[in-house]
């Protein structure tokens, strides 16, 4: 983020087109490189969530599965906030204050 980006945010102006280009490219290239279409990725995301949901209760709305690319290496990154385990045997950080 540059000084101009911050100024644009404060003034509620559109972000600069270069930063939009950067973001769009990173996304489209992650898909191009992995040869996964957005539909296929979405299908995979649902199936991953189903499997994980067997063991722990997760926030289905918050769960995000995405492709990230760095140095021409693409990684599948899943960020799944856990509400609590199904058995309740494991105390999770979120539940500490309950």
């Amino acid at each position, binding site marked *: 983020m540059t000084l101009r*980006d911050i100024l644009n945010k404060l003034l509620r102006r559109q972000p600069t087109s270069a930063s939009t*280009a950067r973001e769009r490219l990173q996304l489209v290239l992650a898909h191009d*490189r992995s040869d996964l279409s957005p539909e296929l990725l979405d299908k995979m995301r649902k199936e991953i969530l189903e499997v994980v949901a067997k063991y722990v209760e997760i926030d289905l709305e918050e769960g995000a599965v995405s492709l990230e690319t760095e140095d021409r290496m693409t990684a599948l990154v899943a960020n799944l906030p856990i509400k609590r385990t199904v058995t309740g045997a494991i105390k999770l950080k979120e539940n500490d204050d309950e």
Partner: protein
Amino acid sequence: MKTNTRIILICSGKGGVGKTTLTANLGIALARQGLKTAVLDADFGLRNLDLLLGLENRIVYTAQEVLEESCRLDQALVKHKKEPNLALLPAGNPRMLEWIKPDDMQRIASMLSEQFEYVLIDCPAGVEDGFKNAVSAAKEAIVVTNPEVSAVRDADRVIGLLNTHGISPVQLVLNRVRPKMIASQEMLSVDDVTDILSLPLLGLVLEDEQVIVSTNRGEPLTLNGTNSPAARCYSNIARRMQGEEIPLIDPSKEGSGIRDKFRRLMQTKIF
């Protein structure tokens, strides 16, 4: 076949980003350094390298006759009058596309490498047969792109294919860079493009109206030793290819007025 000949594919994926202009200018610039250089037009469907070099009226035979063995290689090579170290092997009739195979390109490249120190192959746009034929003859590659989303995306696809063909090294030339647009963050910066494509940068070429003037005349900018921005960039690239260490032109340092200084301040990265 001489093994130390550098056979370099100049490719981009997308059309119109400046492959042929770069091939012509690097060919002349290398030849001016005293290096025996051949430029090979591998764009059989839409050939233009002859036109940019101003050699279109001197073509007698082409790569087609060489492959059919109806003429010798020397008969087909068109020597540049002002720069005799440079020769063009013209593309043949577009009908060549129907029968030319990777083997044929390899044969041509191997013939050329007996006489030349550099062989620059002007690759056709696209990633289909024309690209596959051209890449099969090359050892290394220069990927040309523009700071635009479509050109960068296509370059990425081509880089992937070059890797699977075992081409190495693969280097990047960023063409048509507009420092003012980068400064106002309305164009991808040099770092943006090299980060996204993760390729070493061989050089950048500043946007320059003189490129059009030079193509009108059929005299590449590097031919006359002019000092236009793009001419400087092309010569720098040719010298880097020979291993000279020449610092990159920093587009953000172009321009010294108060407005340019303000633009630079606004580019400061906060996080």
